């Protein structure tokens, strides 16, 4: 019996409200265009008018929303000032990228409906213009031929075709441009591209600038036309429509006058656009502050540690920063979790060398060279952040489970170091009463830099006689024959053959069912924070376990799942 409301309730509510607003806007604007002001427009194009305008309203709404979840500094600020708010609300801010993606899908969906409807509109407007006989469509299309302002049919001549019109009107041209931008953004944001070729994703994503500019000017041509208010009073469509041949000659039915809708989109998106411009300015200003590399350490398993100092830099546990190295690349910023504790006088990141940028950074920092590097030879760095993520909340729970997979242990390095410092300063009131730490790793080399930290914590706790406070398990999930033999031979020794710690390394993957059951049994009625930094598969598994092992009873034990990954 699980409790999904505690874990997922608020997120689901947010999504439902968002969907509800979308549906409301769609239906509302569909009905707006059923009004008699648009009677004659609908004579020409039928329902396609409503089918085009309804998703347009939804597009306005979603394009307004899409910039907000990526204003990192704003969100970090909200998160920080929300310390007094319930944990649940701040957790929603962690899912900003998920929300950004959902809104993007919705934009793509509505764009598709909007375009298909307008394809019909263009075709029908063209048909109306090509009418030879004196049908109502013909008469309507001829209106405004003299003054070019009171016309209904945006296609003004019969010597053209829809494609030509699309590319020669502001709406058509901007529409094609922004749709192309949207398609390129989406195809380069596919998981495969994003995870393997980050630069392609990042640079192509900046086409959103073109997207927003085009979006704002899209409606400037005012080609969606309806009857003017005064004209509706004089030429009532339900009476005069059938007498179209006598318009102008009959005093009861003068020729109807039409006008366009003024552009509305800018009213929706101007706010978020301004916020986003501020966001980029803040990022730029922060990046210009001087950053000094104080120490470079190369670890095995292709990991580089950079220790840096920046004036006025303040961080919380588990936060991340964006790093830029102008000598490597002027335009690229990459996120890295901070592995130092707030109590230290410097801040550090551990960078794994996986691609172009990291490789070049490694070389620029003298990673290849064996001898000591002079401080002035080290490259200048720019730092943006720190930005808050889930691990900030670790100290708000009484009991925590920290799960890190491979390099995903980095935010917890920061947490454990901070725990060490607070323990050292006797700030025991500020830390969880019990920490369960799990580290899943594929190769033994990766342990080296972290093992030192665990060793000092282990010694500390033994000295204080509080060995139970931190319970940690390290799982090695991959080994070969030679290593297996080595482990068997050294199995009985006091210190683990891999890490040198008293706590023995375990082999294979943890049995999460058992772990959760045991912990639930040890701490009935507690709020247990489960923090994961690792792959999606593991996230799904832990999320399920958290839900399943949470009591339906509000006084029972609750596992609250928090996930971060990049």
């Amino acid at each position: 019996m699980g409790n999904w409301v505690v874990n997922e309730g608020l997120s689901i509510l947010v999504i439902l409200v968002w969907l509800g607003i979308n549906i409301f806007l769609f239906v509302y604007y569909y009905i707006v265009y059923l009004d008699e002001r648009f009677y004659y427009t609908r004579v020409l194009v039928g329902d396609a008018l409503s089918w085009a305008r309804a998703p347009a309203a939804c597009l306005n709404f979603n394009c307004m929303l899409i910039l907000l979840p990526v204003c990192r500094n704003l969100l970090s600020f909200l998160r920080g000032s929300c310390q007094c708010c319930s944990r649940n609300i701040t957790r929603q801010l962690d899912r900003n990228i998920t929300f950004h993606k959902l809104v993007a899908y919705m934009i793509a969906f509505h764009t598709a409906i909007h375009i298909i409807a307008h394809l019909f509109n263009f075709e029908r407007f063209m048909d109306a213009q090509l009418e030879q006989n004196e049908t109502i469509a013909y008469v309507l299309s001829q209106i405004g031929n003299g003054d070019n302002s009171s016309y209904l049919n945006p296609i003004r001549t019969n010597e053209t075709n829809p494609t030509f019109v699309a590319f020669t009107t502001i709406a058509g041209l901007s529409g094609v441009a922004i749709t192309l931008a949207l398609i390129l953004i989406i195809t380069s944001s596919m998981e495969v591209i994003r995870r393997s070729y980050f630069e392609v994703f990042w640079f192509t994503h900046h086409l959103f600038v073109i997207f927003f500019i085009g979006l704002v000017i899209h409606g400037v041509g005012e080609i969606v036309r309806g009857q003017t208010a005064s004209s509706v009073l004089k030429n009532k469509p339900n009476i005069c429509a059938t007498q179209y041949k006598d318009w102008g000659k009959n005093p009861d039915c003068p020729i109807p006058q039409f006008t366009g809708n003024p552009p509305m989109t800018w009213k929706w998106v101007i706010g978020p656009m301004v916020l986003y411009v501020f966001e980029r300015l803040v990022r730029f200003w922060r990046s210009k502050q001087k950053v000094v590399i104080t120490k470079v350490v190369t670890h095995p398993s292709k990991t580089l540690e950079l220790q840096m100092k920046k004036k006025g830099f303040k961080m919380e546990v588990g936060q991340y920063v964006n790093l830029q190295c102008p000598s490597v690349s002027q335009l690229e910023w990459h996120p890295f979790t901070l592995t130092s504790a707030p109590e230290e006088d410097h801040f550090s990141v551990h960078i794994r060398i996986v691609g172009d940028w990291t490789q070049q950074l490694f070389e620029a920092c003298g990673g290849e060279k064996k001898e000591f590097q002079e401080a002035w030879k080290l490259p200048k760095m720019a730092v943006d952040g720190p930005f808050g993520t889930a691990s900030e909340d670790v100290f708000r729970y009484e009991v925590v489970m920290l799960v890190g997979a491979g390099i995903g242990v980095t935010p917890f390095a920061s947490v454990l170091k901070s725990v060490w410092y607070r323990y050292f300063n006797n700030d025991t009131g500020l830390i969880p009463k019990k920490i369960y730490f799990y580290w899943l790793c594929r190769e033994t080399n990766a342990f080296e830099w972290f093992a030192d930290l665990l060793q000092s914590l282990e010694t500390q706790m033994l000295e204080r006689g509080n060995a139970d406070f931190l319970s940690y398990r390290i799982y090695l999930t991959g080994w070969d024959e030679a290593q297996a033999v080595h482990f068997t031979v050294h199995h009985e020794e006091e210190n683990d053959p891999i890490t040198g710690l008293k706590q023995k390394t375990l082999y294979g993957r943890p049995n999460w069912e058992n772990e959760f059951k045991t912990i639930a049994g040890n701490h009935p009625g507690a709020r247990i924070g489960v923090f994961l930094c690792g792959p999606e598969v593991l996230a799904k598994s832990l999320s399920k376990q958290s839900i399943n092992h949470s009591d339906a009873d509000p006084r029972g034990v609750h596992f609250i799942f928090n996930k971060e990954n990049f």
Partner: protein
Amino acid sequence: MGQIEWAMWANEQALAAGLILLTGGVVGVAGQFKDWQFAAYGVAAGVFICLLEYPRGKRKKGTSIERTGQRYLTVCVKAFGPLTRNYYVRAGLHAVLSVPGGFMLPTVLGCVCVAIASLIYLLAAIRGEQWEPIMPRVESKERPGQSMKEPPTNPPPRPPAELRRKRQEDAAYVNPIPISVNSV
């Protein structure tokens, strides 16, 4: 940007373009637009491009992730040999396929998207990339030694190793000769 395989992005773009061309074609045919023949072409070309681009190629570095159920199409695409392996051919093919889409509004977007995919494929080809099929991994089953056809029927003559090895702290006496795993 040395390590980017442009073909990966070209593939995503081409697949999306195929779908867009197909949708535009369906609209043109279903709505009985003028010049609907171009729309019918759009449907056919869109389907063809989707089938061609659905199987992802193998990456030179890193793990290649297949699309669901792409195995059958991989076999078909592989059968054309150099025609599908070479990205110059693909770039040219997409460029040619995109042209008729430009004659009618519903398929114009598909036309431009396919053309862009063609350009990215051209870039991939210039950098020497090739399409390699992702073949299913041959799962080598755990084969125990030939002599271990059946589990032993008789118990071993002495207790298993865990029981033999006494822990130092619990021992009532200490063995004069230290015991190791392979001790007799």
